[in-house]
């Protein structure tokens, strides 16, 4: 069924968006619509057959990246989102836009200005900083539903006729195998959709009307089940709210599949990376890649409560976990690879078992606790969440050898190194060598009093197992 009607959609849609908390998205889309739809911002946009003024054709791969957007609404909001994040200053954004042949001036002067004006009317004594936030793509389904709801209610009222300054639009749906042709000016051109909503945005622009005038058709993809539900009976805002709560999913990350060709002029990788939704960014052309838009968590952005929580990755630095020894690397590498649940892997070096000073005399293969396939308790020293990699230590608090020592106690020790003004003592196999205080101010040359291998009694001056700190003193032998 196709229905065409003419009425002003802007005001009622804004009111709905205000009630349902998607004002930024709705105003962005409506302002883009007012200047002729999102595709008008691409400088090489020319006509329906994709012919640029100079006679060149828009690269098919680049063009095809549009068709991967579900509908025109998605294209508009993606463009606005990427534009917002393309730089912190207007100059940065313009540089970005120039590289992607996007009409930055139009975006700033038409879209942003009109959107600000619309928002200003909606706000009550608010500063710009408080309401400026990037477009949130998680609200896409909500915006779609609201537009559908309004069109259906208009359809029910018998397509009320409005003023001259109006958007024309309607609802098209196909039954069975019958395909619905989609206008070539839409991002959905060439695809078959069962149900969609459409607007002709050109009546609101300054484009010449009549023969040859551009018909900027906007298509919004809407699931048939939603449309059926909306058509069943008149829905009020709490029906819609319950439906939104039930049906639309708020995903932390929107994944966009992109298939596009990197244009020869876009060699700057950094700049190119800013335009992810529409271009493949690899050095090799014609590469399909998956792009993830991370949520924006800056000032005025998405608040902390909804920061994406990765339930499978609960590891924290400083905590102790059990892992399985996956592989052992013999000297000179002397470390073991440990695997944990959730995909984390880490390196346990011999130095983190015995201390670095005993590396020469030890071999990880002789360690009883480190055997392939065996479970081992380790502490995470450093963690790279992105790579899911950790640096590990087997020196655990409960097995800390320094807990054997008491402040003021006397313990046997061995001299392992003697310098002109210092000596090093071995007080325990798992404690690094310590440099003691020598209780004799007359000593000028340690070699006179100490030899390597001497057994001495060390006096513990200070010990703090938590910090792995010990200070000892030793008397000079006569």
């Amino acid at each position, binding site marked *: 069924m196709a229905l065409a009607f003419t009425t002003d959609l802007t005001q009622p849609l804004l009111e709905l968006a*205000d009630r349902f908390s998607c004002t930024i998205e709705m105003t962005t889309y409506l302002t883009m619509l007012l200047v002729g739809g999102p595709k008008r911002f691409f400088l090489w946009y020319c006509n329906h057959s994709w012919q640029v003024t100079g006679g060149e054709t828009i690269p098919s791969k680049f063009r095809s990246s549009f068709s991967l957007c579900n509908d025109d609404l998605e294209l508009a909001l993606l463009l606005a989102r990427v534009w917002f994040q393309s730089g912190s200053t207007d100059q940065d954004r313009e540089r970005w836009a120039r590289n992607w042949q996007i009409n930055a001036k139009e975006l700033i002067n038409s879209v942003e200005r009109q959107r600000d004006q619309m928002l200003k009317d909606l706000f009550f004594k608010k500063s710009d900083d408080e309401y400026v936030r990037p477009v*949130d793509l998680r609200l896409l389904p909500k915006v779609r539903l609201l537009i559908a709801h309004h069109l259906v209610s208009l359809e029910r009222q018998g397509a009320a006729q409005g003023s001259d300054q109006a958007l024309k639009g309607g609802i098209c749906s196909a039954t069975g195998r019958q395909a619905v042709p989609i206008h070539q000016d839409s991002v959905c051109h060439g695809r078959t959709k069962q149900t969609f909503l459409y607007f002709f945005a050109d009546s609101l622009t300054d484009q010449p009307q009549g023969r040859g005038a551009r018909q900027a058709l906007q298509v919004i993809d809407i699931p048939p089940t939603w449309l059926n539900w909306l058509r069943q009976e008149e829905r009020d805002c709490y029906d819609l709210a319950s439906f939104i709560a039930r049906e639309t999913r708020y995903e932390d990350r929107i994944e966009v599949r992109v298939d596009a060709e990197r244009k020869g002029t876009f060699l700057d990788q950094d700049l190119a990376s800013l335009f992810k939704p529409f271009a493949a960014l690899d050095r090799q052309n014609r590469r399909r890649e998956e792009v993830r838009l991370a949520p924006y968590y800056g000032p005025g952005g998405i608040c*902390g409560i909804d920061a994406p929580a990765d339930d499978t990755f609960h590891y924290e630095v400083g905590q102790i976990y059990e892992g399985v020894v996956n592989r052992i690397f013999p000297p000179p590498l002397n470390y073991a690879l440990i695997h944990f649940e959730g995909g984390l892997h880490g390196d346990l070096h011999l130095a983190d078992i015995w201390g670095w000073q005993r590396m020469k005399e030890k071999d990880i293969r002789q360690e009883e606790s480190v055997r392939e396939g065996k479970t081992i308790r380790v502490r995470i020293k450093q963690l790279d969440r992105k790579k899911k990699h950790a640096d590990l230590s087997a020196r655990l608090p409960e097995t800390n050898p320094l807990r054997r020592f008491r402040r003021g106690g006397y313990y046997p020790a061995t001299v392992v190194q003697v310098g002109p003004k210092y000596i090093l003592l071995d007080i325990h196999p798992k404690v690094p060598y310590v440099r003691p205080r020598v209780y004799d101010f007359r000593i000028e040359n340690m070699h006179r009093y100490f030899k390597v291998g001497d057994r001495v009694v060390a006096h513990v001056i200070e010990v703090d197992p938590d910090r792995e700190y010990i200070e000892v003193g030793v008397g000079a032998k006569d």
Partner: protein
Amino acid sequence: MQNPNVLATARDRMRSAIRQYRQYGKGVMEMMKEKSLHHHMLAELLYEFAYQDGNEDPARVIFLYTQGQESMPVPLYCLTPPLKVSQPVYNERPLRVGLLSMRHLSLDHIVDVNWLVNRELPQDEVYLRKDKHCYELTQQQLRLLAAKKQVRRIHLYQTGYHAAVIGFYRALIEYLRDVRAGKLPELEVTPYYFDSNRRCYWEGQTWR
């Protein structure tokens, strides 16, 4: 977030307002004296005083906005204490409601619908008119939701604006009073308060 000194002072002022009410028939509490009472403290304070505590008789307190404007009287000590439960009574998914639209856009993706729309509030400086408007709308919507839509759990994302807070909770207290009288179906409202410093929400006491 909650400064215990400010809350303790507010609690004392509330008690003295209740004493005033008992003595003279009108109890008034200033919200903006010394340090202002934040919206989340106001809500928590109302929760503390809405439920009966021992043998206290019901009271009514008027809140003072800036410039000495008075709010609608809010009934206190009029609800029997709710049952202590650690889990939500109803397992169904709550309706996530923002108290007022266009206040904090950062919670747009969290809420399903806004309780009050910013543009519909009276645009003058008279707070009494605003809290009355919020009260009437809340009363109407609570009844509609509970009776017709069968919504039994609401998560209220509260972002400030004292007139809206007072209007909402006054209507909620009256609704819960009617629930106890068996006139209306039960409802559970859990407020979530926006913390602008940490940019997060913390859960308030559940009204039921």
